[in-house]
């Protein structure tokens, strides 16, 4: 039986999405992965009935572009609340070039914390970096799809939540 799992990448920058999707599909794995790309949510209503179940949603935000953060914020409203129990992940791109940043990492961390989901800082410039991130996302997908015995998406998300949280949650 062929197992298929679906990962969805949402972000405003199509180049980053394509590169990351290619890196994910190149990785060696024991199960089939389909990667679906979208610029923003909600998805168009035409293919509603034929759309398969999505196992993991990854939101890509670029620290150099305010627009990408606003797109992601608008799309978050269309995600079913059950996904936030470990099936949503945020990716922050562009943290290396401090000179060109327009958003602070703190803002993105606050956003991720308010949705109880992990924020992964990533660099998508080189192939090695992309494959590292792809491996990490595939691992999260494995857990979210239920392939790892004894571990569920909710347990994983509570394990990797850091002990230091942003101020909204502290007082």
């Amino acid at each position, binding site marked *: 039986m062929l197992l298929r799992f679906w990962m969805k990448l949402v972000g405003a920058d199509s180049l980053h999405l394509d590169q990351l999707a290619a890196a994910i599909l190149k990785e060696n794995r024991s199960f089939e992965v389909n990667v679906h790309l979208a610029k923003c949510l909600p998805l168009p209503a035409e293919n509603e009935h034929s759309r398969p179940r999505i196992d993991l949603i990854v939101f890509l935000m670029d620290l150099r572009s305010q627009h990408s953060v606003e797109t992601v914020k608008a799309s978050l409203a269309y995600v079913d609340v059950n996904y936030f129990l470990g099936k949503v992940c945020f990716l922050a791109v562009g943290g290396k070039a401090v000179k060109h940043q327009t958003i602070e*990492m703190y*803002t993105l961390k606050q956003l991720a914390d308010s949705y109880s989901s992990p924020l992964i800082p990533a660099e998508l410039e080189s192939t090695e970096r992309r494959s590292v991130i792809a491996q990490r996302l595939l691992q999260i997908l494995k857990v979210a799809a239920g392939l790892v015995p004894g571990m569920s998406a909710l347990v994983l998300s509570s394990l990797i939540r850091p002990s230091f949280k942003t101020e909204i949650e502290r007082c």
Partner: protein
Amino acid sequence: MEHLTPAKAGMARFGVCFANTDPSPVVLRTVKRHTAFHHTSAKRKIPRTDLPVENAEQIAVLLQKQWRLYHVTPLYGFSYSMLKKYSNELSVFIATEKKKGVAIEVGIELASKAKFSMLAGLRATENDPEAVFIQIMAKTAVRQSVDEKVVWSGWMCCVDGDLGLLESLPVEFICLPLLFANGPETVTTMVGEWLQKTFDCYISAFPIRSENLTWMAAMWANCFSDSVQRMMELEWFVPPIQLTISLSIHPEDAKALWDSIHTNEDEITIEEVELFMSSLHSHFYRHFGVRLAATQLVKVSTAVASAHCDGKLKLFNCKHIDHVLPFLTELAFHQIQYQPRLCSSID
């Protein structure tokens, strides 16, 4: 790092509440210090400009010049009574550097002289140290006569500095975190080296982030110069295609937009600043189809001052100087406290 425990007043400003049952406030402070995810304050006070400006003629020297901004860590052993001694030492230092063969500039052949002086009128509160003005003059031989002209000038100041940090410094230290320099780069490097050697400080470049430029645009939109009508100019840069987009706004329109957003008399909040910028973005998008939100703001220029993200500043107005300097001092203090290694050094 010399100071490990900022005062409680400073910490309360960042929204952390210390309840009575809090077991170890020290641990919380150090955790906050070393995190990479630190953010600037969400509200800022508007300074009052109805106080008369003292020492207007000396401050007029600071206007209309393009200054490069640098960061300076607190100076050890700096004394205001030894300014003459410092002038002599710096002159000697420049002379020896020249002998070593360090090229300065064509035309400065004869001896150059440095002069340190106090610049009064730039402090906001009693706790701020007085500003210091440095000038390097060189004698150039022009047509048989020896002419003395100012080759390099710079000033250091601290305006309305963070009270917690100023009080936590040991007595021997004086904190003048901002250094403005105008003149050849090589002379700036020499002066920087001398300052670092003499006062055991560290001077680094001071790039201004885009969010802080948006704060400046919002803060200065309200200020009018009585004599000169100057357009508000904003410049955006798109790194991948090396494109610069500039927008000029009539000051009346900018003020009208800001007045419709801004409510509280004393404070500016970050939501007001973001709303101001997003209105400009959507206006631009509607007319030109370009999403400015995906680009990087690099330059803001109004009747008050003009600031560039590389750390260049130009002041135009004596009256509104206290709209600019306290904000820059606050940014400088942030840099000292939270990101000491993110900037490249001067040499």
